[in-house]
């Protein structure tokens, strides 16, 4: 988010097939392809819209009824205006994995000769070890790096009895679980803020319990 230029990136997430693209189209006036089967959205669409002096860069969406649009946009702007500076959360992985990530990060830094900052090297390292296709293609020309990553992945998998991407997924969900435990405690203390989540749950799970007027739900 850029508060001086009043630009905020809105990443809207939802379950597969929940209608994210349909809402994205409605919010931004775009005509992204929609299909009633999973994985239709192959490239994330990003569109900029203006609302109350802010530029919202919208990527993907979650389905809501017609009344919800204005409220959603207001809420996004309110959150952007109220937000204070925060540092990004860091997920801690298994110690061997952390060492490997650091090692590969160092190699990436050398290859890119200072063109990337530490956070970028760290991120690239994790994505390469995770086996992310897009990143592997992008770094494809650095054959030695790719080869080292391949060796590290095999070594880690052999020592831990599970694939690196599985170790990473486990750590991420462990982190989310811890975060939710904290948040749930806060929600109970605030009293009543859990209601909105519970009201939205039927919509976000696209179940037949959804009572909103959005026709595509359930």
């Amino acid at each position, binding site marked *: 988010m850029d508060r001086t230029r009043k630009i905020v990136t809105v990443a809207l997430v939802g*379950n*597969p097939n929940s209608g994210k693209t349909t809402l994205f189209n409605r919010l931004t006036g775009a005509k992204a392809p929609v299909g009633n089967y999973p994985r239709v959205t192959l490239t994330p669409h990003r569109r900029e819209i203006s609302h109350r002096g802010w530029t919202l860069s919208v990527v993907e969406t979650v389905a809501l009824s017609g009344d919800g649009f204005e409220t959603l946009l207001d809420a996004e702007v309110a959150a952007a205006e109220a937000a204070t500076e925060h540092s990004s959360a860091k997920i801690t992985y298994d110690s061997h994995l952390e060492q490997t990530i650091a090692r590969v990060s160092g190699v990436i830094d050398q290859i890119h000769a200072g063109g990337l900052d530490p956070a970028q090297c760290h991120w690239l390292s994790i994505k390469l070890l995770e*086996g992310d296709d897009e990143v592997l293609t992008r770094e494809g020309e650095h054959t030695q790096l790719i080869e080292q990553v391949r060796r590290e992945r095999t070594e880690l998998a052999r020592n831990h009895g599970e694939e690196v*991407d*599985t170790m990473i*997924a*486990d750590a991420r969900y462990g982190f989310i679980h811890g975060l939710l435990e904290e948040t749930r405690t806060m929600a109970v203390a605030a009293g009543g803020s859990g209601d909105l989540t519970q009201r939205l749950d039927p919509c*976000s*799970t696209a179940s037949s319990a959804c009572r909103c007027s959005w026709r595509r739900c359930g």
Partner: protein
Amino acid sequence: MADVALGRTVLVQKIASDETQFRQRLQSMGVVKGTQVAVDHTAPLGDPRVYALKGYRLTLRNAEARHILVTPQ
């Protein structure tokens, strides 16, 4: 997980597949070790089936669910 009876709840242990993309997609949707999954309902012919996990529902073909190794809750 394809052989678990309707209405039962199980715990995910492992995704037994060499296909990295398939494994990663499932993992990104929460199919990781320790996740509780309930077999919610099935399509008329028994395939695909709908599973409930992490507050949402996921539809999987039996051929896909067969790769997910689980234990009773």
